[in-house]
Structure formats: C-alpha cells, structure tokens
C-alpha cells in the first residue's frame, strides 16, 4: 500500500530481485495480487465513469475516503462488521454519487469536459478538508477478530482480510460486468457511452443514465471500502494514495475498459509489491508513476483500449 506518511520512514536497504529467496518473491506476488484486486475495484468505478461520461473523476479518492469513514463509523458506533456493512455502504455510495451528479457535476459542466475536471477537483478539496475539519487528521483503524489472522497459501502467509478482499473484489467485478452486459440499464449505459446524441434520439434519458453511471462508479468504492478497512486504515488524505494508482490502472488498461482495469489492477499491485521489495518502500512507489507516465506518453489508449 502506498502512502506518503510511510515515505518519511527510513529506507529498506535495496536488494537484488534475483538474490531474493523465491518464497519471498512468491509471497510478495501473492500480496500484490490481493492488493491489486482492491485497486482494480477502485479503478473499475473510475473507468466506468470515464467510459460513459468521458470525464476524469478527480473526486474518486475523496469519495473512497468518505466510504472508508462510513465503514469505520458503522463499526465503531453500531458495531457492524465491515463485511456486514456492504449492503449499507454500496447503496449509500450509489445514492451519494447519483445525487452528486444530479445536483452539482451535471449542472456545473456547461457541456465542457474541462469544467467537470475542475468541479471534481473542487469536490475532492471540499470532501478531504471537511473530513479534516470534522474527523481531525488522526489515522483510524478498526479491530476485528480476523484482522491479524493469516492463511497459508503454498507456504506464503497472507492476511485473511486480504484474501477476502481478493475474492470480494472479483465477485463485485463479476456483478458489475453482469449489470453492464445483461440488464437494460447496462444497455442504456453502453448506448450513452458510444453515442450520447443517438441515445437521446431513441428515448434514453441521458442525464439519468449519466447520474446512474456516476452512482455505480461510487458504489464500487463503497464495496472497496468494506473490503479494504479490516486490513487498512482511514484518515482524511487516504484517498490521495489510491487515486493516482487508480488513474494509472485506468490509463494502463485503457480508459473505459473493464477487463483492462482488472488486469491493470493486478499488474500494478504486483509491480508495487515487487518494487517495494527491491527498491525499498519510498523509491518503490516510483515504479507505478513511471509506468503511468510511459503509458500516457506512448500508448494513451492503454493496453486494451481502442483509441485515445
């Protein structure tokens, strides 16, 4: 996991990847895959919003942060297990996204994509600092009976919450793909993504579909937050670390491509994990951004995208 507070710690001594014990590399790859699954889930929401609305949601990280606080308070105040919070958080985040689009983003755009970029940036500033104002900058985490338990996978010890997050993220992705692929809402979403004028002509309420897509995008974050918190923490800046990673994944996989986001998520998770192992925690983060910049420059349509 990437986060700027960690970066002030002392560096691990750099190691050569080939000198490391294969068991350590294997454990590191598994760890990367489990982290990558959650990254993929966050990126799926982002790529859906991009694919349909053609906007980059800069408030994605801030929305994730709010969802994490939601899960945290459900656990602290009501004693709800994070996994039990799923049926609350997913609809709540969906509603928040729908209303945010209807109330602010859709209205403020004046039909210009640049405006939406700035609006979502403004929203992220508001959300992040509102969290700072109300919840203070303390880093919070929750204690569950399974937080510290691990499972043994071919000799590698992986934390239980991470394994749950892995399968949970996969399951959510499948549900999302089914919604987009098999329902009439999904058909409307795909129609709007391809050709919004045409969609309007055949009687689709485009603004409603846009708001639904934004809502679904944030609902993914609700799920991600439930899977993330047992093994992670929350503070007002927590979204920043994820948002650039999610952008990287979306760009890597091709903006708007679900399969791309999934594969990109795993790829980035593993790169981050191995990068941290070889280069140390601070410098290890660079691998992700280098991938990001290189892909943006040389293949902005991504590995699986059709065109820029």
């Amino acid at each position, binding site marked *: 996991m990437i986060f700027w507070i960690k970066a002030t710690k002392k560096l691990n001594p750099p190691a050569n990847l080939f000198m490391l014990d294969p068991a350590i590399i294997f454990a590191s790859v598994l760890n990367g895959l489990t982290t990558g699954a959650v990254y993929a889930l966050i990126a799926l929401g982002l790529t859906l919003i991009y694919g349909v609305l053609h906007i980059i949601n800069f408030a994605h990280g801030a929305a994730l942060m709010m969802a994490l606080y939601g899960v945290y308070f459900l656990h602290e105040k009501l004693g709800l297990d994070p996994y039990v919070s799923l049926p609350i958080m997913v609809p709540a985040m969906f509603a928040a996204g729908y209303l945010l689009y209807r109330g602010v983003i859709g209205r403020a755009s004046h039909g210009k994509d640049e405006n939406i970029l700035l609006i979502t940036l*403004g929203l992220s500033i*508001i959300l992040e*600092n509102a969290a700072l*104002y109300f919840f*203070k*900058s303390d880093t919070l985490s929750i204690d569950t009976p399974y937080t510290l338990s691990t499972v043994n996978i071919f000799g590698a010890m992986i934390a239980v919450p991470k394994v749950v997050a892995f399968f949970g993220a996969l399951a959510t992705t499948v549900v999302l793909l089914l919604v987009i692929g098999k329902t009439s809402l999904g058909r409307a979403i795909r129609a709007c993504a391809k050709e919004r004028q045409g969609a309007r002509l055949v009687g689709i309420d485009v603004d409603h579909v846009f708001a639904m897509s934004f809502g679904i995008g944030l609902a993914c974050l609700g799920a991600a937050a439930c899977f993330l918190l047992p093994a992670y923490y929350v503070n007002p800046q927590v979204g920043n670390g994820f948002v*650039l990673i999610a*952008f990287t994944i979306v760009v890597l996989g091709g903006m708007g491509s679900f399969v791309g986001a999934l594969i990109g998520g795993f790829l980035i998770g593993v790169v981050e994990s191995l990068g941290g192992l070889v280069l140390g925690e601070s410098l290890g983060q660079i691998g992700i951004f280098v991938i990001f910049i290189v892909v943006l420059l040389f293949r902005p349509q991504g590995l699986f995208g059709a065109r820029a």
Partner: protein
Amino acid sequence: MRSLAAIAILVVAVAALPLFVSSGVTLGFVTMVLYATLLGQAWNILGGFGGQFSFGHAVFFGTGAYAMAVLQMRFGFNAWLALPCAMALGAVAGTLLGALSFRYGLRGSYFALVTLAFAEVFRILANTFDFTGAGVGLQLPLQEGAGAMQFAGETGYLYLALALATISLLFAWWLKHSRYGAWLAAVRDNEDSAAALGVNAFRVKLAAITVSGALMAAGGAFYVQKFHYIDPHLAYGAAISVEALLSAIIGGMGTIFGPLLGAVVLHGLGELTRNSLSSAPGASLIIYGALLVLIIMFMPRGIAGLFEGKR
C-alpha cells in the same frame, strides 16, 4: 494601454505602501497576495491563455525551491545568482515536460494527469535522496542581509514579491497584445484550426509551458527565501498546484488581472476564516473548494469576467 497603466499604478501603490503602513501583518498580507499572484499567473499563462490545464504545477514550484536551496547550500551560490538559475531550471523542467507531453499529443484530462504524475515522481525523488535532504527537507541557514536575499523586515520581501509579480503581470499583458499571444489563444480555442492556419501549435504550447515553469520556479525560490525551509511535501505536494490554479480560475482564466483578483479573494477569505473559525484545520480549504465549484457553476469566466462585459 489601460492595463499597462493599471499595472504601473499597482506597482507605485504597493511600492509606496511601506511609507504609510508599518504594520508587519498588513505588509505580510500584501506580500503573500503578490506571491499568490505570481503562482496564479504562472498557471494562467499555460492554463488560462493556453488552455492546457496542469494539475501538477508543483513540479516547477518544487524545482525552483530546491534549486534555490541546493545551489546556495551545496554549491555556495549567492541568493541573487541562485534566483535566475532556479528560474532557468524551472524553464528547463517546463520545456522537458512540455516536449514530452505535447509531442505525444496529450490534451485535456491526459495532460492534467501527466503533470500530476510528474509532480508525484519528483516528490518521491526529493523524499529519497540525501542531496535534497530526503524526508527531512532543507533548512536554509540564517544569513540576514539584503545581499543574501534574507530581509530583516517584511518590506524587503514585499519588494521582491512585487518585482516577481510585476514580471508575471507584464508577461500576461504582452500575451494579450502580441502576435505570439494571439497564436496561443488560437491554439487554446481550436488547436486543429490554428494548425491549419499555419500556427505551429507544438512550439507555441512549448513556449507557454517554459515561461510558466520559470515563473512558478521563481515562486518556489521566493518561498525558500521567505520561510527558510523546504521539504518534499511542501515543494511537490498537491496543495501548491491547487493554490496556483485556484487563484487563476477564481480570478478569471486568460485575463491579465485574474490571478491578482483571485489571490486577493483567496487570501482575504483565508484571513477571515482564520480569525472566525479559530484556525481549525481544513476550514479555509473547504471554502476555497466550494468557491471553485461555485465559480465554475455560475461565473465560468471568474471575477475578472464581471468587468469585461459580454464576450
């Protein structure tokens, strides 16, 4: 000419201010407004006049700040020599970033993302190497005196900030009245048509990001001299990128005085909230963010748009 006269009046008024006002708080406030004007104008030249929205202008700010500190501390440069060097390095950073991203045709959100990523890469690099003080940052040794650009009172910093802000304002004025400025506006409004008319869009944008980088670096250098300290988060963090674009957008993108108006509003609001909300963390930024959203919703041309009438 009217804008030029307005700039002249501003310069004279601010220059005369220390004669009438001795309050360090007031002078400090004006200094910070001018500093924010400089940052906003740096962003405005690329974002407002050129239409290329950067979300990572901190990359130039940090380059200038670290150049200023490192040149003085590691290479024994005099501060007055280090300042133009820092600006030159900011310009080089701008040229490189621009050459990379414009060569590959990055526009809109893609450009915003790549600048953000570059700022993040530089933050991690500055955080890693001892050359830049790693995570601890660099503390500029105290060496009071105008010769070392470390002034005893607020007045010296006021004049320094005034000089830098005036340069940025004059450049913006020149953009409004020159052939190059017309090219830049043409590229912003429709790059393909501009190219069809024979404007070399790549070079026009490259020049804009170069100047923008130099001015932003000057802001970083000023910051180091004023506060004697820089660390990776201050230099390359998102806060400074946001500050630069906020004052430009709130004041009015693509206008000469927009960044100045935005800086006055933002810092004025900052002072108000600091006094009324008992400096709770985040309070002023909530208002800045809300202001950004409201301005784009209701006044997309910013405060300066109010004075310019219908376009």
